[in-house]
């Protein structure tokens, strides 16, 4: 069985695909429900607008299989907008429901800091983390986003601060997600992806 990388129509998938491929992972792009139904694990990458993302999933009939996989305990890794889409809603698209795997709402970064939050930032560890195994505490990761999930409302294992404390790494049972781009975060980013792949066995 393969790791399915969800293709909702606008993501920058080749870099995620390449990064996983370098680790020896067997991946496929999921453009239809059967690609998700037969997956060993699912990667949900995303850039751009929240509503384009969730609408893209719905138009391709990928939202229900994703829900079924989540309920069945299939490991799911969300990246950037993929993390945000796991929540019930986002301030970026009021009235547009997210996947709702996690409680709470994604919010705009405060106006007293530069937004988008673009560049390399460090994490504040809050709980032990599967994804951050063997990652140095002071490691920098590459972020590029204007919205984020407030750290206190999410199952946050590591937070980052940019105007507010927000969830940088989220882990809850089969749900794993990062607000940064591991595929763009050099060696430490590769380690995060390796931790995900190796936990699949």
């Amino acid at each position, binding site marked *: 069985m393969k790791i399915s990388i969800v293709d909702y129509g606008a993501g920058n998938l080749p870099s995620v695909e390449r990064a996983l491929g370098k680790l020896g992972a067997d991946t496929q792009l999921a453009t239809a429900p059967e690609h998700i139904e037969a997956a060993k694990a699912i990667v949900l990458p995303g850039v751009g607008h929240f509503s384009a993302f969730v609408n893209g999933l719905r138009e391709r009939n990928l939202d229900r299989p994703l829900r079924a996989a989540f309920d069945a305990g299939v490991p799911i890794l969300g990246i950037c907008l993929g993390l945000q889409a796991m929540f019930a809603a986002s301030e970026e698209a009021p009235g547009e429901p997210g996947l709702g795997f996690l409680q709470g709402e994604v919010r705009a970064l405060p106006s007293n800091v530069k*937004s988008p939050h673009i*560049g390399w930032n460090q994490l*504040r560890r809050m709980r032990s983390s599967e994804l951050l195994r063997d990652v140095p505490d002071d490691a920098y990761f*590459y972020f590029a986003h204007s919205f984020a999930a407030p750290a206190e409302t999410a199952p946050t294992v590591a937070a980052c601060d940019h105007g507010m404390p927000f969830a940088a790494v989220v882990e809850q049972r089969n749900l794993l997600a990062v607000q940064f781009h591991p595929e763009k*975060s050099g060696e430490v980013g590769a380690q995060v992806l390796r931790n995900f792949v190796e936990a699949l066995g």
Partner: protein
Amino acid sequence: MTLARRIIPCLDVDAGRVVKGVEFEGLRDMGDPAELAARYNREGADELVFLDISATNEGRATFLETIRRVAQQLNIPLTAGGGIRTMEQGRAVLRAGADKVTVNTAAIQRPDLISELAQQFGAQAVVLSIDVKRNGKGWEAYTRGGRDATGIDAEQWAREAVRRGAGEILLTSIDRDGTCTGFDCELTATIARAVSVPVIASGGASTFQDFLDVFQDGRADAALAASIFHQETHSIASLKQFLAERGIPVRLSK
């Protein structure tokens, strides 16, 4: 825990080769884009910018292939542009593997280009490049690689571009570009104060002190340079070490 200031090498590409303008001599070949990209990636660059300066259609067609080859080498972000006029051209650059697209002349001629790109790909994928010359009263935006004056105030243009969805400003001082007299800190600070998005300073970098100045006095979020890195006179690692010792937050690669 602070957002690190970024060091960004810029590579000008002409028909598939990295080139550098040399006074009185024209363009000098600096090497293979993918090889240079891999080297900068290894040395701790935080991001790379590739600009297409090809004068011919054949050269421009090669650019997408160059982006594809470069993206294979990288596990850091890649920005690409040069002559982007339409959303479809922007999409092609992103599809080829760039994370962000930079626009300049076409955005001044048709500001809707910024809005279209931001709506389609998100603000974080749109970098507005502004080439600026100091005039009597203030700062003026220029187009076509610094050749044409526009009469447009750079600060106002930066504000409008951000309103339209530009996620970063790549700010080049034409007065300083190629002079090795340091970044224009006054210009950089003016624009950095005017907009809510990160500002990348460019033009004039020569010494480590120039980078320190543009981060401290220029309030820059990132600093971009080309030739001083290509020539290997300055390694990115030693520049970052210099900045870290002086209290600038930078990502030191291990």
